């Protein structure tokens, strides 16, 4: 695998959507290629940042109770 292949598959690797073989191939490339490894770490940080920031909102307690009443 070269850096171009790695870049092409990075989204799927990040999302754990590759086959076991492909995951291993990409992992081996990252272990031997510091620039690609740095890029991967950055993309993983981006993904975590979006998740953490967008996960902060929770349904208000009063709304949850209202729905509970509606559903019962």
């Amino acid at each position: 695998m070269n850096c171009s292949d790695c870049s092409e598959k990075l989204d799927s690797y990040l999302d754990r959507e590759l086959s076991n073989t492909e995951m291993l191939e990409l992992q081996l490339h990252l272990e031997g290629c510091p620039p690609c490894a740095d890029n991967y770490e950055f993309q993983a940080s981006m993904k975590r940042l979006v998740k953490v920031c967008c996960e902060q909102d929770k349904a208000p307690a009063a709304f949850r109770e209202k729905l509970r009443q509606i559903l019962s």
Partner: protein
Amino acid sequence: MAESPAQTAFAEEALSHLDTLYRGALRLTRDPDSAQDLVQEAYLRALRYQHSYQQGTNMKAWLFAIMRNLFWDRFKGSRKEDVSLDDVGEFVLYDKLRDEGAKPEADVLDKLAASEVVAAVEQLPPLHREVVLLVDVEGFSYKDAAQTLGVPIGTVMSRLHRARQQLQKSLYDYAVESGIVRANGTKEVPQQ
């Protein structure tokens, strides 16, 4: 009228996914009141059509699909209203920051305000926003996201890729505007 144990179990499981639905509705409508209206409507519809839910399948995905379909039907009107993403080309924030000498690149992310990250997500066109919500925020697999959205997996992947690039472009613009990084410079500006 007393509810049956099956209905109680259905309601309990459905409510266990409320935060996911509410967050999704909030990001789609960008308004707390509209989000509550949308989620309530989705739960009412789910209750009405609970017979069509197959036990043991992904209820979170089923509920989210009901909610986003309602969003498109009632809040957005025609699906054709969705605007396309600006063509940002192959924008990779990591490369941009590296080229401008802002190292370590991940430190820049730590300086971004959570509200700006949420704002960048909300600026995405809805068709792209919902893919980010499902995959990046709620952890859906590509397959579950594709089933929820009623599109092929390849469409999920391409929308996700473009949405992530647009997100990175928006956050880069914010970082430049707020002095976190200096465009075309070689130094990172210390945060105040």
